[in-house]
């Protein structure tokens, strides 16, 4: 909701500090010489942050749950692949085109689902899935786009000052993630965001209070599509070989949903948190031949988060910010220095520790602080878990209205 200032000094400083640190990392990497993979790892984190955040401003903020993220991601990826890989464009000019393509796909889909028919939640979700699969099938069959052969990316030119490919991906990935997060932040704290949240909770009431629901939904859909497609276009450089089933498959939607649901869909910070968390876990487990175990664990977390954690981790973190943050920093340093883990391994360990602290029942934490006194009812946890039957009464009312 609107504060008097969009960026209070604390928030602005925080953003600047994080960005400043991240900007120095490639230089630092060259000086100090820690593994280059950390850059790639961070690029992938940026990529997932961008994807998850772009999904979330649509599906988290406005409540229209989409399974069609791949339509934008794949659309952007193919734009860059066709223009760059086939027609020899430089990388940078392909990205705005990718954004336009993503925005167009979103706009057309939005016109269909929001104007022509108002599709309900589940149908909307499956419709977007059908659109993504449909575009995939089209790309697979139409030689102008691909025709099933796949497009090897080769090397695209880009301005030399962006450094080598890894650094270029890193900087551009960071930029996109920053844009995505800022967009999410600004939306959340603006009139636009207030309107979207209202749409999510009760579209009819929102409309009655003066929220131009159709315009807002279209706008956020297009914005989401543009962000995801730009990020997909850049990611084409990382993927190297673009094929329809890779670009329009289920993996991207699954992961962005997972990240946002676990991280929290109602806060700009949620998908960011989810992306860092899930990608770190996946990176540590999947490569090491634990793909199946990883899949089971992630799926279990998805189920648990859906059932018990309606606000995601960010909801909990907002209530209890300090102990987990401190735990994270301490655990990271310990693991890195004493434990001899890699930076990413340390991060995984630290995240684990921080999560444990985050989800310790309040009673325990209080009893640590106050000795043995642990009688009070656990506050917070209720709110974090969210109300189960929020919508019952409005449902009833809607039903009555329709019945009259």
């Amino acid at each position, binding site marked *: 909701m609107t504060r008097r200032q969009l960026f209070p000094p604390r928030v602005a400083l925080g953003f600047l500090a994080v960005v400043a640190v991240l900007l120095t990392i490639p230089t630092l990497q060259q000086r100090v010489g820690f593994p280059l993979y950390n850059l790639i790892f961070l690029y992938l984190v940026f990529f997932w942050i961008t994807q998850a955040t772009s999904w979330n401003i649509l599906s988290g903020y406005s409540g229209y749950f989409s399974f069609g993220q791949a339509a934008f991601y794949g659309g952007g990826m193919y734009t860059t692949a066709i223009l760059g890989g086939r027609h020899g464009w430089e990388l940078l000019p392909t990205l705005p085109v990718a954004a336009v393509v993503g925005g167009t796909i979103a706009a057309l889909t939005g016109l269909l689902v929001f104007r022509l028919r108002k599709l309900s939640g589940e149908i909307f979700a499956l419709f977007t899935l059908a659109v993504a699969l449909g575009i995939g099938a089209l790309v697979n069959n139409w030689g102008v786009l691909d025709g099933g052969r796949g497009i090897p990316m080769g090397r695209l030119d880009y301005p030399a000052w962006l450094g080598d490919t890894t650094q270029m991906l890193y900087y551009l990935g960071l930029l996109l993630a920053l844009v995505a997060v800022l967009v999410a932040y600004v939306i959340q704290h603006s009139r636009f965001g207030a309107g979207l949240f209202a749409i999510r909770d009760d579209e009819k009431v929102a409309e009655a209070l003066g929220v131009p629901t159709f315009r807002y939904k279209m706008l956020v859909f297009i914005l989401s599509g543009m962000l995801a497609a730009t990020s997909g276009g850049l990611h084409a450089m990382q993927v190297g070989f673009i094929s329809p089933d890779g670009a329009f498959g289920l993996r991207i939607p699954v992961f962005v949903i997972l990240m946002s649901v676990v991280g929290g869909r109602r806060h700009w910070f949620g998908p960011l948190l989810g992306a860092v968390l899930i990608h770190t876990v996946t990176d540590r487990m999947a490569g090491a031949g634990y793909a199946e175990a990883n899949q089971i664990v992630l799926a279990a977390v998805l189920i648990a988060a859906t059932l018990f954690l309606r606000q995601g981790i960010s909801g909990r973190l907002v209530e209890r910010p300090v102990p987990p943050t401190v735990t994270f920093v301490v655990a990271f340093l310990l693991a890195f220095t004493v434990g001899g883990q890699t930076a990413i391994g340390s991060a995984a360990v630290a995240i684990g520790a921080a999560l444990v602290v985050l989800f310790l029942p309040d009673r325990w934490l209080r009893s640590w602080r106050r000795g043995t006194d642990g009688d009070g009812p656990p506050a917070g946890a209720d709110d974090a878990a969210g109300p189960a039957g929020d919508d019952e009464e409005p449902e009833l009312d809607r039903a009555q209205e*329709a019945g009259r």
Partner: protein
Amino acid sequence: MLILLQTLATGIVLAGLYSLFAIGLSLGWGLLHTINFAHFSFVLLAAYVTYELSTAAGWDPVVTMVVTAPIGALLGLGLQLFVTTFKIDVFGTLIVTFGLFLIFEAAMAMRWTADLLRLPSEINPYFTSAVRIGPIRVSMLLTIATALAVLACVGVWWLLKHTRTGRGIRAFVQEPEMAAAFGVNYPQLSLVIAGIAGATAGLTGTILGMYLSLTPTVVEVWIAVVFAVVLLGGLANPIGVMGAAFVIGMVESFTRQFADPAMARLMALVVLIIVLVFRPEGLFKRLVQEARE
């Protein structure tokens, strides 16, 4: 003319397989408010069971249905109990069962590895043999699937339409409060539906076990087309499921016969998108509808 009839016949048996696959999903969604993504896992698990029983124990693959159908039913019951216990809403079931789908997929990959498992021809004569009607030939296996599909769909339709249980279910879906007031014990009836839905998954699995080379991910290519049938069919309408499967089957069959075969799946998706835009409720009416939307 002959080629037209042949294409029609091919489309019909394809539709049979699609409707057998989709009927359980449609019932769960329309009657139990569970969009069961794990239906696909149930099918694949049953397919593996058919494979195991046929190769290791030497059963005729068709006979394995006496095992796979109950397994499917049990899985359906288990899921329904889970959904009721945690009071998951429609949308929640989609996410939760998708999680289950991922878990099943990984677990099956651990158990059966990623290797291609295929029933050898000598114990699976159904795969290559055909049913002949005059000059027209259709796959024996798909004909079995079609017979099962008709049995399942018509059976469910009859159950819903003409039995006390079916009346109770329909009444509850329309007016839960009134149905309860007149003595409908929904938790019990919902288990009946969940069991039937699961059993059809088991039957589908046996058919696919004979039809495909099994890998843990093989079922993914069916997701789009099966959801298309469910959405087009109008929820919980067994006859609608058959009708929708017929439409999709024909679209695919005719595309394969008279246009670029690679476009078949695309055409099916295009039909789905167009129909959803103009008739979000599907091509067919829901047999059972909430009184108030």
